[in-house]
């Protein structure tokens, strides 16, 4: 227990002046910024150095992009092997890589886009009982002058096989996968509903994050249950004229840069031009931020990733992506937009998607309005969790079961 100079320890007396108690309260709860000062300075210096290097590499990368070979040549000259973790993109269509595509003026009247998001209460050993909650929220936005339709769904899971994995460990990472499935399932059922109403195609469903399955695909649960369900949703969406779309702001990644770098190498894998080096500090997002004007998108690209090749492709749903600038002049906001090949290669569908995303993002400064609303509808707040725990507590009492949170959880509630 720390000691205040010239005073007793704070919990040894209840007669200490208020000011001393207050200072203890502050000391206990504050982040010790003073101790982090040198680390903060080091971080700033490193960021500055990276930024300077990125500026140099960026000029080079922009030149590579503007002078890139044709899409056919790029596809023909892919490396036989890639480094571990390295992902490279290819342009699946024949549009020049340096194309920056403009949106149509406005989304066509009658177009429908469905925003879907999810949130969860993870299982907690310190809670009243062991369970988890998945909540999904959606907004059906019809471009017809009418108010959008909100939807919410919640699931409470408490069975042993739902809570523990094959090794008997409490699930953690699996929850994100199950949430992704819940989101896609809701998106599909809403697209079916909108299709039945006679909505024009494409009926776009927009989810927050990648559409390309962002997990390893190696667990039994993924192989046996989750991925088949995921791809079944894609199948059904395709049948009803749906277009699943993933939206990732600040996407990171260098798949396009790797392609550009590859275009600079000779048959021996060496740079053809002296002084050119593999870009380390710049990424696709930075490149696109300096290449795409507000509202413009890149050509469609396809990542040659193991997930795309081994899972999506055999299922008939390889994922394409493009970059889209949803920001304003001098304030670019780059998002990665993903869609299955069968939807993305339809020019009129891509054009509608482009116009809708630009419109949606203009409402909320770069973030699609429907995603913000879906997030709001899906969010499980601390108050929601407290209300659920209170109800659960009452029901358990009615069944004669007296239970309480762990002492650790109770004390954490003090702060």
């Amino acid at each position, binding site marked *: 227990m720390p000691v205040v100079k010239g005073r007793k320890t704070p919990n040894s007396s209840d007669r200490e002046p208020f000011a001393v108690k207050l200072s203890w309260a502050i000391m206990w709860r504050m982040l010790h910024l003073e101790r982090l000062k040198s680390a903060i300075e080091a971080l700033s210096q490193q960021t500055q150095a990276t930024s300077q290097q990125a500026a140099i590499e960026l000029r080079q990368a922009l030149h590579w992009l503007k002078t890139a070979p044709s899409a056919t040549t790029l596809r023909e000259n892919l490396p036989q092997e890639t480094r571990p973790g390295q992902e490279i993109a290819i342009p699946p269509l024949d549009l020049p890589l340096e194309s920056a595509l403009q949106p149509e003026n*406005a989304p066509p009247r009658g177009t429908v886009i469905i925003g879907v998001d999810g949130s969860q209460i993870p299982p907690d050993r310190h809670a009243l009982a062991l369970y988890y909650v998945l909540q999904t929220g959606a*907004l059906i*936005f*019809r*471009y*017809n*002058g*009418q*108010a*959008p*339709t*909100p939807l919410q769904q919640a699931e409470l899971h408490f069975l042993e096989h739902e809570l523990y994995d094959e090794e008997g460990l409490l699930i953690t990472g699996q929850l994100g996968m199950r949430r992704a499935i819940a989101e896609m399932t809701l998106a599909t059922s809403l697209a079916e509903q909108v299709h039945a109403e006679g909505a024009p195609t494409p009926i776009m469903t927009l989810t927050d994050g990648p559409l390309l399955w962002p997990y390893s695909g190696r667990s039994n649960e993924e192989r046996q249950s989750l991925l088949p369900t995921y791809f079944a949703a894609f199948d059904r969406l395709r049948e009803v004229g749906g277009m699943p779309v993933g939206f990732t702001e600040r996407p990171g990644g260098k798949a396009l840069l790797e392609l550009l770098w590859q275009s600079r190498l000779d048959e021996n894998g060496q740079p053809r031009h002296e002084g050119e080096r593999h870009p380390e500090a710049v990424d696709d997002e930075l490149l696109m931020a300096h290449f795409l004007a507000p509202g413009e998108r890149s050509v469609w690209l396809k990542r040659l990733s193991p997930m795309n090749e081994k899972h999506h492709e055999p299922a008939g749903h390889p994922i394409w992506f493009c970059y889209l600038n949803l920001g304003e002049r001098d304030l670019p906001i780059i998002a990665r937009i993903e869609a299955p090949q069968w939807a993305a290669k339809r020019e009129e569908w891509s054009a509608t998607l482009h116009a809708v995303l630009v*419109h949606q993002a*203009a*409402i*909320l*400064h770069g973030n699609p*309005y429907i995603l*913000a*609303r879906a997030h*709001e509808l899906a969010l499980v707040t601390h108050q929601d969790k407290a209300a659920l725990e209170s109800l659960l507590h009452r029901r358990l009492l009615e069944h004669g079961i007296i239970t309480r949170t762990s002492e650790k959880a109770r004390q954490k509630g003090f702060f």
Partner: protein
Amino acid sequence: MKENTPSIPIGNVLRADIRSFVIASRIPEPEVPTFGTFVRAPIQQGKAQLIGLVYDIRLQDDPFLRDLAATVVEGDSNYEEVIRDQREVRAVPVEISVVAIAYGDETGYHYGLPPQPPMILHRIHVCTPAEVHAITARPDFLRPLLENREVPADELITRALLRAAPLHGGSGTADAQDYLLAAGRYLARRLGREPLRLETILQQLQG
């Protein structure tokens, strides 16, 4: 008019004291009650009903709405669906303030302050026309307003009387006029020492 129209729930009690209370509501814009609406709230474990008048309506903002407010343009077709979403679906939080004027139990209505305020999170309803007719049968329901300096009492008196009058004989009828005349006489007695205030209220009633 004494029809038994179902009352409309408008929200839950957020905070309360013996003279007034505040309701939190997320009802869509068309259903937000207006200034001077008669509402009732259960008190004393539901054995009695507090009767009050809406005297303030505050539309709360939130960060999401603040972000949108700088962008959307009313009348611009680009924002048509978004504005309708915010107004009709998302329904911004509304705080409705109510001043107590009476309470009712099995023996009838009693004018003045209630024995206790409504408890937190009790559901509040708009009074039916029949209830308003019964509450306003005597002008004594105005007394708590005349004594309350914390609400826009004069405007509230005018609005409550104009709302009640058609229920006592039909809109524009002689009976409704007689009702307002009786209320005017009551106010004249009560505001004998405040002629300017009386004049203002009476002018508003005529206007």
